[in-house]
């Protein structure tokens, strides 16, 4: 067992799914024996994005929607950091949607936990990209007209090498998914169904509880077509587990400056570099 990740007072509502996500995260990190001082917890802005505030680790709470680029670059700078992004569905797929797709393409070894409550929590209840069609919210008084995204399907289609879904109400499953995602070498997504007791009265704890089921043990998560077909199921029944997993070289492995040498942050500056470069201009 490694060092423990202590707790701070939170600003979440009693009953919020974020509490168990936080708990599972700490358990996962402790069970993986990771030194808190070598963990970077990154986030954007939102209720989910407060997670780093409640865990003893290095933290980077950046701008709404912009956690992935910052986290990606921090990992590029120091591969010895375990970089984990905890943030919301609005943050990840709305404001940050472009970074989501491109973080996948980059395949830097970071872990992305999306607390998917299918709503904007912190701003008090507007539709998020995963809010169901027809869902009436404070800003969609006539019901949400836009078709929801399926983040799991989208991530696989965009080329992610590790894509899973879990549920905050199944702490054992969630902890396992987190451990697998953190251990994966490359960009890993876990979309976590998370009840928001204050602003989402539709996708409640029991709504999810009644619908989630485990992907069969014989689901072949190396088969992308099969993974996508299973990912399309999201309604009366919602499969959870690892949909897709593929071993492929991460960014560091492929990058000439990063692959063979020490972490970028430890590479020393050599004045001869500039001398040589100047000579090219003479």
């Amino acid at each position, binding site marked *: 067992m490694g060092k423990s990740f202590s707790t701070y007072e939170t600003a979440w509502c009693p009953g919020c799914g974020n509490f168990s996500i936080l708990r599972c995260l700490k358990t996962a990190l402790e069970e993986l024996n990771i030194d808190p001082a070598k963990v970077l917890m990154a986030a954007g802005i939102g209720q989910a994005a407060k997670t780093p505030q409640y865990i003893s680790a290095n*933290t980077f709470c950046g701008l709404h929607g*912009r956690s992935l680029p910052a986290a990606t670059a*921090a990992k590029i700078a120091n591969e010895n950091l375990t970089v984990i992004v905890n943030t919301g569905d609005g943050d990840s797929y709305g404001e940050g949607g472009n970074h989501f797709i491109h973080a996948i393409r980059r395949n830097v070894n970071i872990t992305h936990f999306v607390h998917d409550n299918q709503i904007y929590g912190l701003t008090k209840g507007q539709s998020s990209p995963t809010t169901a069609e027809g869902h009436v919210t404070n800003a969609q008084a006539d019901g949400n007209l836009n078709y929801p995204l399926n983040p799991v399907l989208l991530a696989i289609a965009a080329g992610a090498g590790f894509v899973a879904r879990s549920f905050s109400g199944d702490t054992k499953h969630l902890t396992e998914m987190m451990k697998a995602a953190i251990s994966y070498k490359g960009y890993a997504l876990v979309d976590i169904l998370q009840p928001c007791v204050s602003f989402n009265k539709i996708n409640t704890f029991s709504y999810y509880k009644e619908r989630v089921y485990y992907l069969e043990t014989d689901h072949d998560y190396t088969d992308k077509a099969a993974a996508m077909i299973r990912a399309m199921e999201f309604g009366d029944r919602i499969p959870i587990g690892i949909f897709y997993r593929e071993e492929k070289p991460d960014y560091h492995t492929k990058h000439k400056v990063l692959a063979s040498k020490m972490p*970028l942050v430890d590479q020393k500056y050599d004045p001869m570099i500039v*001398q040589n*470069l100047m000579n090219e201009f003479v």
Partner: protein
Amino acid sequence: MYNILIGGAAGQGIDTTVSILEKAFKKSGYFVYTVKDFMSRVRGGHNFMLIRFGNEEITSHSNKLDGIIALNEETIRLHQSKLKKDGFILCDSNFKGDFEAIRIPMEEKAKEFGNPRVSGTIAAGAVLKIFGVDFNHLENVLDTSVKKAYFQVNMQAVHYGYEATDNIYPHMGGKYKDFMLINGNQALALGAIAAGLKFYSAYPMSPATPIMEYLSRHSTAAGVVMEQAEDEIAAINMAIGASYAGVRAMTATSGGGFSLMVEALGLSGIAEIPVVVADVQRPGPATGLPTRTEQSDLKFVISASHGEFPRMVIALRNHEDAFYQTARAFHLADKYQIPVIILSDQYLGDTTSTVKKYDLSEIPSNAPLVSAADETKYIRYRITENGISPRRIPGKGDYFVTADSDEHDEYGFITESADVRVKMVDKRMRKLEGLMEELIEPEFLGDEDCTTLLLGWGSTYGPIREAITTLNDISGGKFGALVFGDIYPLPVKALTKYAKKAKNIINIEQNATGQLASLIREVTGIKCTGSILKYDGRQISGEEIADRLIKEGYNG
């Protein structure tokens, strides 16, 4: 001093012709200064470059031509009027038109040599002969100007052009052989590398793209990770993330991309994460004129982003600044844990100049400034007298480094306390006091007893400098100029001193509204009495400045 124009359509290989010429001129000892006038298209249209060279320092382009090298007929039509009385035109034998010219069958010969694209190289050979440049360094010049596979045919072409022409101008000698020939973008990139740059992220945007391309080409040699971002927002957030993690980081763009980076400037400001952002300006608004020059982002960048936080803005005046001030930008960003914005522009970025090899001992530091581990419990945002909190690198010891875009307490926890809020704003703002102490005053040019004081900033430095020399020659010392490099916070000592003495104060800017003038008035109350504003996308020359001031009677 000589001045020639090489013109043609996009895709005709002006770049190569010019590259051969400027290198050969410099290797022969000349000081060389080359400016680019390109359209925002890949083929067709009209592009040209001006090469000015001689045996003394040159700081501005000129529109009075000793020669026109026309790769198409349009070039002659468009530029003939700028030709001096004795100037020459060099063109293909089959160009139609009633003008005197040195005609060489370039296209025909190029085809004969098996590569129609070397006709520009034939012209280059001819020009070298016209200006009496010998062939000592030609191999080296061609080696770095054309692809290996085309070396031989280009060699053949140069020789042919050389033989086909007569010498006209004597070589004047010169001592610049071992100097560099570098453009503003390259100098900037080199300055960043010299400051220990390790991470660079950017999204392509003219005229800043050459910086990322240079860094990509030298990534492995320089140990720099150059990552092309999906957009400018990602680019700056990446740079900030990398900087947080302990490596020197930067991004560059032009005004449009800078507009997208505005929110993250404030993140750097409140989270106190150093970052260097270069804005290589072009004419706006919006897409504007993508490949042209302007200085219209000054007021924007000094107040860009909501809320209030300290920042520094440095305008690059020339190819020395591009290197040394970029390196200094990293040092200041680190020292004060603030965003530092570098203002360059298309003119400086694309202009190639002869420059003395940079002195690395002038670079203030080449690694992030990190506090020693003198505390038992590390407090990221400790309130200190000078506003600077001890900075540490995450993952390097038994402490946690926090960073927060929300207002926070000393430990980096979100706060809503009115009291803590005020303390934190004050702490951050106090950093300006230290920063003000190390501002570099604008450079004074001209006569101490001037009655007319010119004010400028950034890349008009060179043209203003040339103009001051000309004007003082004519007027017997009535002119002086202050050209700002450090521009925000505005250094005011020299300004106050010279403004008191001057009868006329004239701001010279590449924009329509006189942004420096209004900044000066805001800060000092000093009001300019006249102004020269140019905003057609083309840089003002030293001649143009001098001519206008004389016409308006300031030499009287």
